[in-house]
C-alpha cells in the first residue's frame, strides 16, 4: 500500500500534464472553466487533438488503438484531463459502444466502426430509455421485425443525450415477445440519416437543450448492424453499464470543481471578509471533501484489485451512486457560495458564445453566471445511467444478496 507515485508514474504525469495544458485551445478551456455551453465542434476539435496523441481511448486494448496504460496511468490521465479543463470526452462511442464492439462485434463491425469512433468522425448516441421503459428498462417496446436482410424498426427512444449531433445511435430493440422480457431484446446500430428517424429536442429546467426524443418510424436497418446474437441484447446492455469503472465516479472533475468552489468563495464576501474565511462554510467544504476523498480512495482500491486481475463487479454501483452525490453536493456548495447573486439569469449563457455581441442580459459576473443553472442541470446525474435507486437495488441484490 503506497499512495506516493513512483518515478515512472511521476514522469508519465508530467508528460501528460505538459501536453494537455499546452494544447487545450484557450477558447474551449474558458468555456469549461466557466461552465459555459460547448458545441459539437468544441468536442470534436479537442478529441482529435487527443486522438493525435493516441490518448483518446485509454480503456481500449492496444490492438484496437488504446495506449496500453496501467490503471494508475489511466487514473492520472483522468486527473490531468480535468485539471487542464478538458471538456468531458463524449462517452457514447468511446466508453460504451467501443468496448461493446470489441467484446461482441464481428470483425466487419470492428473494422467499420472503431476507427471512426477514435477519430470522432462518427458521433454516437444511446437509444436505451423509452417513455414506458426507464428504470424498468427491460420492458422496452421499440420493435424490430426481420424482413429479409433488414430489420424494420418502430418505436420511440427518449432522454437521448446530444442526439442532435449524432451520426449513429445504438439501440435496444425488441425482437421477440416470447419468454421473459429480458430475453427478447437485441442490440442494433442505426444510422441517424435513415429515413424515418426524427429527433425532437427536450428543453431542460436550466433552459438548455442537450436531451431529445428520437422517433423511429419504419426505419430499415441492415441485418449486419445487429451486434451479438438476436435476443442477446440484454447481456450486452448489462456489460455496457458495468464494464467501465474509470471516470464513472467523476473524482477528477469533482476535485477540479472544488477548486472552483474555493475560487468563488475567495471572491464572494460575507461580513466584510471573503467567504473562504468563514468557519461554517469551510466546514461545509470539509464535509464534501471527506466524501470526495473517501470516494477517490475507494476507486483506487477497486482499481488496485482490477490491476491484480479481478474482474469488474457490481462495486461500480458505489462509484456511480456516491460519485453523483458528491457532484451534486459540490453544485450546492457553489450555489451557496454565490449567495443572492444566484438570482440574476442571463439567457446569453445558453448561446454558443458568451457574452455574445448581441448580449443584452443582466450584468452577471463571470464567475457567477452559470452557477445556478449548473445546480439545476446537474440534478440529472442521480437519474441517468441507472438512477441512484436502481444502483442501491443492484448493490442490495448483487453484493448483499438481498
Amino acid at each position: 500500500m503506497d499512495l506516493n507515485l513512483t518515478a515512472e508514474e511521476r514522469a508519465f504525469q508530467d508528460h501528460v500534464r505538459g501536453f494537455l495544458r499546452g494544447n487545450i485551445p484557450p477558447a474551449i478551456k474558458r468555456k469549461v472553466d466557466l461552465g459555459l455551453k460547448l458545441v459539437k465542434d468544441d468536442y470534436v476539435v479537442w478529441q482529435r487533438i487527443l486522438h493525435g496523441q493516441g490518448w483518446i481511448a485509454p480503456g481500449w486494448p492496444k490492438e484496437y488503438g488504446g495506449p496500453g496504460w496501467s490503471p494508475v496511468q489511466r487514473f492520472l490521465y483522468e486527473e490531468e484531463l480535468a485539471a487542464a479543463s478538458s471538456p468531458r470526452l463524449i462517452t457514447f462511442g468511446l466508453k460504451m459502444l467501443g468496448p461493446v464492439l470489441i467484446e461482441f462485434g464481428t470483425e466487419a463491425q470492428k473494422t467499420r466502426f472503431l476507427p471512426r469512433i477514435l477519430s470522432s468522425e462518427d458521433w454516437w448516441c444511446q437509444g436505451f430509455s423509452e417513455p414506458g421503459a426507464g428504470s424498468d428498462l427491460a420492458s422496452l417496446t421499440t420493435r424490430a421485425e426481420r424482413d429479409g436482410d433488414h430489420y424494420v424498426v418502430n418505436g420511440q427512444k427518449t432522454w437521448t443525450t446530444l442526439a442532435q449531433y449524432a451520426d449513429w445511435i445504438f439501440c435496444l430493440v425488441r425482437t421477440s415477445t416470447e419468454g421473459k422480457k429480458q430475453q427478447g431484446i437485441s442490440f442494433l446500430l442505426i444510422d441517424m440519416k435513415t429515413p424515418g428517424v426524427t429527433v425532437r429536442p427536450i428543453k431542460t429546467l436550466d433552459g438548455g437543450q442537450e436531451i431529445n426524443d428520437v422517433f423511429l418510424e419504419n426505419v430499415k436497418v441492415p441485418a449486419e448492424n445487429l451486434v451479438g446474437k438476436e435476443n442477446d441484447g440484454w447481456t450486452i446492455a448489462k456489460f455496457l453499464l458495468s464494464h467501465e469503472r474509470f471516470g464513472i465516479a467523476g473524482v477528477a472533475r469533482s476535485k477540479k470543481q472544488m477548486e472552483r468552489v474555493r475560487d468563488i468563495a475567495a471572491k464572494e464576501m460575507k461580513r466584510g471578509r471573503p467567504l473562504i474565511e468563514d468557519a461554517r462554510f469551510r466546514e461545509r467544504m470539509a464535509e464534501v471533501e471527506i466524501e470526495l476523498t473517501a470516494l477517490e480512495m475507494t476507486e483506487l482500491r477497486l482499481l488496485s484489485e482490477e490491476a491484480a486481475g479481478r474482474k469488474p463487479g457490481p462495486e461500480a454501483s458505489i462509484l456511480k451512486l456516491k460519485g453523483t452525490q458528491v457532484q451534486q453536493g459540490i453544485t450546492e456548495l457553489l450555489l451557496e457560495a454565490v449567495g443572492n447573486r444566484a438570482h440574476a439569469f442571463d439567457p446569453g449563457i445558453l448561446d454558443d458564445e458568451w457574452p455574445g455581441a448581441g448580449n443584452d442580459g443582466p450584468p452577471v459576473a463571470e464567475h457567477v453566471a452559470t452557477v445556478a443553472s449548473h445546480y439545476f442541470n446537474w440534478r440529472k446525474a442521480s437519474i441517468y445511467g441507472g438512477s441512484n435507486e436502481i444502483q442501491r437495488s443492484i448493490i442490495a441484490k448483487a453484493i448483499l444478496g438481498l
Partner: protein
Amino acid sequence: MNFTFSDEQILIRDMAERFFRDDYGLEARRRHQALPGGFCRDTWARFADMGWLALGIPEDLGGIGGGTVDMAILMEAMGGGLAVEPFLATVVLGGTLIRDGASPDIQADLLPRLAAGELHLSFAYSEAQSRYDLNDMRTRAKADGGGFVLDGVKTVAFHAGTADKIAVTARTSGGERDDGGITLFLVDADAPGLTVTDYPTVDGLRAGDVALDGVRVDAEAVLGAVDGGLALAETAIDRAAALVSAEAAGLMAALTRDTVAFLKERKQFGRPLGDFQALQHRATEMYMDTELTRSLAYMAAVRQDGDDRAAARRAASQAKAKAGQAGRLIGQEAVQLHGGMGVTDEMPVGHYFKRLTLIDHSFGDRAHHLDRLADMA
C-alpha cells in the same frame, strides 16, 4: 501508487480474522471483562505470541517492524472481534510515544518488554475541561532539583488501572491553552502521589482518571524535549485516530454483515424482511459507508508513516470525521433493522453499536475534526 496489501499483510489479516472468529466471540468477551483489570492476560500472551504486540517495533529491539497499515489491519479485525484487550492503550498510544520520545536506552529497556507482553502502558492527556484539545491543560510540572513535581488530574486514560507506566502531559510553562510549554513524562504507575481511579467504560473496556499529587519524577522521565511535548502527543493521537477509524470500519462491517443476515432470516408478512426495498436500500447505505470509512482509514494509516505531517493530520481528521458520521448511521440503523432484538444485551449488535459510538468520543469527535479541517489551509 497502489492500494493493495502485501503478502505479509494478507497473512496478518487472515490470522487475525481467524483468531477472532474461532477463539474469541461474545461469550469470551464477557468472561474477559469480568477478569481483574477487565481483560484476559492469557489472551494478551497469545497476542504477543502471534507477534501483534511487536508490530511497529524495530527488529533490533525485539519487534518485527511493520507500520501503521499493519496495525490498521489488526485494529479492523479487533473491531469485528469486539476485543477488550488494551492494544490501543499499550501498543498504539504507549508504543508510539516511546518510539518517538524515549531515549535509546529507555527504548532498549521498554520496547522488548512491550513486544513480549510484559509491559502495559497508558496515555493520560485529557482533563475535565479540555474536551478534545491537547493543549488545554491545567496539570503542572514544576522543575525541582534535577527533576519535576507533577500536580493535577487527568481524565479518561484508557486502561490506566492496569498500566505499569503512564505517559502524562503536563504544563511546564505558559498559560492554560498555549501550544508551547507542554511536556510529556513517563511516570511509574506506582509512583508515590499517583492515584488511578479505575472504572469500566460504557462500551465494555476500562479507563481511569489519574490524580497526580506532588508526584516526583527525575529528568529521565521526560519524553522528547521539555516544553516540546505537544507535537509528540499530537502525532500519537493522530495515529490513534487513524487506527480507531480502522477499528470502526471493522465494527461497521460486522454490523452490516449481521444486519443483512438478519434481514434474510427474519420473516414478517409472510416473507423475509430483506424482500422489502425500503430495507434493502437502508442496508445498502450501511454497506457503502462501511467501504468509504475503510478507504479513508487505510489512507490515514498510510499517511501516518509518511514525511508530510500536514497530510497525516488532515488524513487522520478526514478518516475520524467520516467514522463518526458513518458510525452513528450504521449503529443506529443496525439496531433499528434488528427490531426488538437490536436493543437486547444478548445480541452482538448492541455491543458493536456501543463501541462504535464511543469511538466517536475518542481522540476527537466528528465536530472536533471538522473544526480542525476547517482550520487547515
